[in-house]
Structure formats: C-alpha cells, structure tokens
C-alpha cells in the first residue's frame, strides 16, 4: 500500500472521485460543484446510507479495496469529498 499520501496526491484525485459520486448516484450537478470540504451527508449533498452502499460498491470495484467501518459510524469515511478521496488514496490497490 502506498506509504506517502501527500495532500497533492489527494488534490489530484478529487475530480475523479467527485465524478464517481455524481455518476454512481445520478446526481443532477457537475463534479466541480461538490465542495471538497463540505459535508456529503446532512447539510451539503444530503446523501444517505443507501447512497453510501451504492458508492462503496463502485469504489471497491474501481479501486480494488473493500470499505470497512472501524466503529459504528459508517459515514465517517464519507464525511467530505476530501476525506473520502484521502481514504481511497491510502487504500487503493489499483
């Protein structure tokens, strides 16, 4: 697994992950409209747990790793586009 995930690597991956969210969930917006640090749940994009399961599946297929929740909070990885992207960058196998 990659050992040095720099902010630059995450930044560069943001648009691709934003595009993935939009296409997986069929949202009516452009990828550039997802603010990297805004919450994906609640205020912000207003995603829910069904969206997460759908996204988790797409992410596991695209990046070759399975999402896990280390605690009860399944949404933590999805707190923002940047958090999700950083998680993907650190866990991806492809």
């Amino acid at each position, binding site marked *: 697994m990659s050992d040095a995930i720099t902010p630059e690597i995450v930044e560069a991956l943001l648009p691709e992950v934003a595009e993935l969210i939009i296409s997986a969930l*069929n*949202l*009516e917006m452009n990828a550039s409209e997802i603010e990297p640090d805004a919450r994906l*749940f*609640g*205020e912000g994009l*207003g*995603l*829910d*747990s*069904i969206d*997460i*399961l*759908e996204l*988790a*599946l797409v992410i*596991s297929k695209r990046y070759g790793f*399975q*999402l*896990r*929740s280390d*605690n*009860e*909070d*399944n949404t933590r990885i999805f707190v923002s586009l940047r958090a999700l992207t950083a998680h993907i960058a650190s866990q991806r196998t492809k």
Partner: protein
Amino acid sequence: MSAVPLLGHASLDAIFAYRPNGALRVRDFLADVEALAALLPAGKHLLNVCQDRYHFTVGLAAGLISGKTSLQPSSQAAETLRQIKTTCPDVFCLCDSEFDHLDLPRLDFPQSLTTTETTAGPRVNPEKVAKIPLIPANFEAVQLFTSGSTGAPVAHGKSWGRLVLNGRAEAQRLGLLDQPHSIVGTVPAQHSYGFESTVLLALHGNSPFWAGKPFYPQDIVAALNAVPEPRLLVTTPFHLSALLASGLELPAVDMLLSATAPLSVSLASEAEARFKAPLYEIYGSTESGQLASRQTTADLAWDLLSAVQLEQENGETIAFGGHVEGRVPLSDVIEIRTDGRFLLHGRHADLINIAGKRTSLAYLNHQMAAIPGVADAAFFLPDHESPDGITRLCAFVVAPGLSSRQLLAELRQRVDAIFLPRPLVFLDQLPRNSTGKLPRSNLQALYAAKVEHVER
C-alpha cells in the same frame, strides 16, 4: 396480574450475545441490566438511541425492570425529537455514540458494563445473579412510531406480553426454538423489523445476536465469521444485493431473513444459490408487528404467523389475534387465497415506503408546506420502481424566495433524509385543477415533462 419473563432461556449460563471481546451469558446480561437500571433517571420514558445492539437491549431491559417505556421513533430528526419531548416531557435519552440530543437529558451507556478490563464504574457481579426477572404482561414496554398525516409522529404502544408472543411466533416459524442460530443483523435494533428479528429473537427465540450492526459487505462477512454456526443473517434487499455484488468470499450462513422493501425473486434466488441456504421474507407493519413470512423462491403467497388472522371489510384488510395489539387496518391491498395464504398487491396510494422507512405523501407535503417561503408543494413517487425497492421521491415546489439548498436544509430538519426529494423541481405554480386538487395524473405528466427526459 400475569407476568412474563424477561428472557425465555432455560439457563442463566446460556449464551445471550456475542461481542468482539467474547460471548456473554444470560447472567452477564442480567448483571449489566441491573447495574444500568440503578443509573436511570426518574423519567418514565426512555429514548434509546444506542447503536450497539447489546447496549440497546441492556437499556430496554433496564427500562423494563424499572417500569420505563422505550420510545423508538422511526426518525431522529430534530422535529421528531421536539414532538416526543412535548408528548413525554420526562423523556431522557440513552446514548452510546455521538447523538444530537437537543436539550433532552442524556445518559451515556457506561463503558464499565461491557469491558471486563476496567473495574472502575458501576458493575454487578454476574455470578450473584440468581433469577430471570418477571415483567407484567400488560406493561407498555415499547412505543414504536409512524408518521401521521398531520405531521406529528403517532405512537403505537406494545405491551411486554404481546412482544414476547411476537418473538416466540417468529422463532417458531423459523425453527429457532429447536435449533438456535447466531443472529447477525444489518438493521437497527430500534425499528420494528430489527427489533423483532434481532432483539426479540435473542430474548425469546434463544438465539444469541452479534452486538454490532455491520454495514459494508466486508463488515457483514467479518461479523458472520465472528459467531458460531448455525447462523441467521437478518438483513434487507439493499445490504443483501451489495453483499452479493461485492465479490467477497461468503461465510457459511444457514438462513437468511429479509424485510423492509420488496425483494425480487432473482435476488432471492441468487442469495439462496450463493449461500446454499433458504431466504425468508417477513411481512408486517409497525402498527401490527410482523404478520407473515414466505420463502420467496418457493411461493409468492404469505403464510401467517401462529394465531394471527386477517379479515376483510369494505376493501380494507384488518389484522388481529396472536401478538397483534387490537385490530389493525393494513395499508396494503391484499388478496386472501382459499388456502388462507395471501398475496400483496401494492400499497394504498398515499403511503410510501422507501428503504423500509414509511411515511405518507400527505405528511411530506404538510412538512414542506410548513416551511416559511413555500407557497405550494407536492411530493411525487414515480411509478417505475427499481428492482429491489429503491425509488427516490421527486418534489415540485413553488417557493420564489428560496434556493434549493435553503429549502433542503429546512426540510432536513423535518423529515428523514431518505425522503428528501431527488430531484426537487421549482415551478411558478403547481398544476392544480379547478377545485384546487392535484390529481396524480397531473403530477405524472409534470414528472414526464420536467424530469424523465433529462435523466440518463
């Protein structure tokens, strides 16, 4: 007054639950119940929002032995909590994780109860537990909530005696009384299906549950591997389809249970083939509790649980008998076959069910219309249902001064996220007819014009 035991186990040394740090016996559970009961505030209403199934059940039982009713709303939206506070001013909440409890008094589940390592904090010695408590059969143990058409959540009281009958009827149907299973549930302990099929089955179906609530496919696999066989997976079509699509190696499972949303025969067949285990669906409602089951691949007709009966009058179907409290009208269109089994033919028009959460269009319209700045509004549920039950609501709104973001932020305060409209369409006016009514056909046409042709 008759009394019913808290648990149906024959021995205090039987296994009650599994946690990551090991198995807990009935006596361990009862010791935790007793310790927690001593900490509960004076109020008679307990809002139990514990995420951990074991914590939740300890909270429920501590309430039962102290004469406190467990409130289990279908949503934790701020507006719902405010309304509960109005109806039950003495309510307090029991939490084991972050929870926006507003101004409700809050008790955190004591860490000392489930960790053997620490000695600090409240504890009762499990070896000194001598008997299983008895609870008055007519005590209102739980209130489950549905959303009424006028905005306020409607409480449905469940007596302890009926809940025990409910758990036993399901356990009997699934054969758990003869062959206990380890239960892994992906559904919350608070809502009717998860409450009945994990908590009540553990208390009165002699089947220990896994304390966690696995979510991602990898979590479900890990939870299943953590408990001994035979195993029962209590889940929903969403978790099941995600699990099957994940490509993960599936652990041995001996029985699958699904509810909350329609399950396609193809998903049921795939699940049975991959797990080499039967899959049963449960039918019920919050008001009636679970009523019937079917093995989807064998027969689409539903088989009533023990002692439950259906009766039809004026096009409405009423459930009664057994564990059902009173006579409960059902919101589905039902055809009773001559052999006593029945078929479901969809829901009555106004009621909707998304991902197992129920509400009515009237309720949603009422909530949206109550937002300052909204002149008119109508939710619409499109006809085309996706195969395994995930259909998103659409809403049409007239709100000249509001942005989509503002309106959604307001709406989020009032309704569960699953009901947020996607898309939300702003209009100058709604296509009401001359009497001010908004026929579904008009909304259908509007939907076709504004939404359908812009989708993929």
